[in-house]
């Protein structure tokens, strides 16, 4: 139960944060929590199932454009538009995963990339829905239901994001500790064996991609009303690569690690970019150092430092990554 106590303590701290932080910092923190939710959703695929996706931005973009359109063109309140967008993203993912899981290993990764780039190309041309290269601007945080206006303000929106992140974290934790989660770990360690033990591994993979896309879509759906706009960059492969880096640097297969990885990515890229235009180069170096010397990520390092026990992420995971699946 120490995990739940730790989460409760951090949640209390985050809930009190608005009392002590200036507005600029609160904006950064809100964005970090949204990115953390996004990175955690990818961890279900990368960390728990060894499904390396190079196109997870598709989930974020789908969520952002769906909630953006709902909020711009309908009177659906913010608190309903966000979960609807997440569900839409999850449903689209079932079709995507059905195609992508025809392959495995590196071919799977390439198919996810191809699909995300396809959505990117569509977003550029489908002006009436996506606003093409201009994107969608002026996305409101619609009030309601019953005239509730709390979530339309910056403070209320922050609490909405925090609630989504905590809910998603507890949901993911229950998922990975369930019988379903045990099968995912089986697929991660030896998919062929899992199949011959009598598990329809493809169905499990499609299910986990759909869940990861729904949660990634939830993050994107929160981002659109947070920033007030959505553009094609949210679907671009660069963003897919960045979220993969957040997962690995934070600690794949730990759920909490990728959330920290997202915050770390935002913090370090903000610091570096104020110092040099080539910040991505230096962040790339940090990423390489992690892969080589701390494959268990920030969370794994922290666990080892504080409790002396190796984390669930294990050592040497990325060095032993088996591309042939």
């Amino acid at each position, binding site marked *: 139960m120490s995990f739940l106590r730790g989460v409760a303590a951090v949640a209390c701290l985050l809930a009190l944060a608005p009392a002590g932080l200036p507005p600029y910092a609160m904006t950064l923190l809100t964005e970090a929590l949204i990115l953390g939710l996004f990175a955690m959703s990818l961890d279900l695929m990368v960390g728990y199932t060894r499904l390396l996706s190079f196109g997870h931005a598709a989930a974020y973009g789908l969520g952002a454009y769906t909630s953006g359109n709902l909020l711009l063109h309908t009177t659906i309140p913010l608190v309903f538009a966000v979960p609807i967008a997440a569900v839409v993203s999850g449903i689209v993912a079932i079709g995507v995963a059905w195609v992508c899981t025809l392959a495995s290993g590196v071919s799977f990764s390439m198919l996810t990339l191809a699909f995300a780039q396809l959505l990117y190309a569509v977003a550029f041309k489908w002006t009436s829905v996506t606003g093409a290269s201009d994107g969608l601007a002026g996305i409101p945080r619609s009030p309601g239901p019953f005239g509730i206006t709390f979530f339309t303000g910056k403070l209320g929106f922050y609490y909405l994001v925090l609630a989504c992140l905590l809910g998603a974290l507890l949901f993911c934790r*229950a998922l990975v500790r369930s019988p*379903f989660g*045990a*099968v995912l770990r089986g697929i991660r*360690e*030896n998919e062929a064996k899992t199949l011959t033990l*009598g598990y329809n591994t493809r169905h499990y993979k499609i299910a986990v991609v759909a869940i990861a896309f729904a949660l990634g879509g939830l993050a994107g759906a929160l981002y659109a009303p947070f920033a007030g706009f959505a553009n094609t960059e949210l679907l671009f492969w660069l963003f897919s690569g960045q979220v993969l880096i957040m997962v690995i640097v934070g600690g794949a297969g730990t759920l909490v690690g990728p959330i920290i990885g997202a915050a770390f990515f935002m913090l370090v890229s903000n610091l570096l970019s104020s110092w040099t235009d080539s910040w991505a180069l230096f962040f790339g170096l940090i990423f390489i150092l992690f892969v080589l010397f701390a494959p268990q990520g920030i969370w794994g390092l922290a666990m080892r430092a504080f409790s002396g026990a190796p984390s669930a992420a294990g050592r040497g995971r990325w060095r032993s990554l088996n591309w042939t699946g």
Partner: protein
Amino acid sequence: MALLELDGLTRRFGGIIAVDRVTMRVEAGEVRAVIGPNGAGKSTLFNLITGVVPTSDGSVRFDDETLTGLSPYSICQRGVSRTFQITALFPEMTARENARLAAQARHARRWQPCGGGAVFGDTERRGDAALERLGLTHVASRPAGLLSHGDQRLLEVAMALAQQPRLLLLDEPTQGLSVEETAQAVETLAGLVSDGAMTVLLVEHDMEVVFRLARMITVLHRGAVIADGTPDEVKADAEVQLAYLGGLA
């Protein structure tokens, strides 16, 4: 009524016929070994029965149901469990979790996405019982990847047993074991099959192991069946002497 019936089972890889019109019956409660020199098609035969490799021709019937064309997971769900010639385990999981996950595959709520205390309880009991039958209880909490090669071979058998299969396929269970390890493993396996409650199909290279465990033997040579009968009948068969037994002696 035979539990497993192969009828004209054939597999071609390009121009090579790996398994050539194999017809074979395995009765319920029988322990049958499939022997033959390297490249005789023994492992391919297993892969055809379990759906790992698609069939070119012929059919596999199990308990009066055609398995041909089914996927590996649905064949396993019908009660056919197997081990592999090259050990296939979940190396980072403990031996106990390996056996438990194998048992979970036959649980009605194996996919349950939250909670699952009851599923874990049931399957852990079945997995632990299988570990005990193979004498692996003392290594249950160690990661499977760190077990000795002999224990890994037995763990794979334990995983198959934890599924309470109606037909157990063992692909060279003593492959790569030392003489002492082999003797030990054979005693353990003999104890398992002695009560006649289990139907076992066994591929094995080591003739001592075969004669110790099997009551019926099928001999494959270049993919085709050249002899079929009790160990004594097979030993006396001239063609077998020429193709296999004589070749080794």
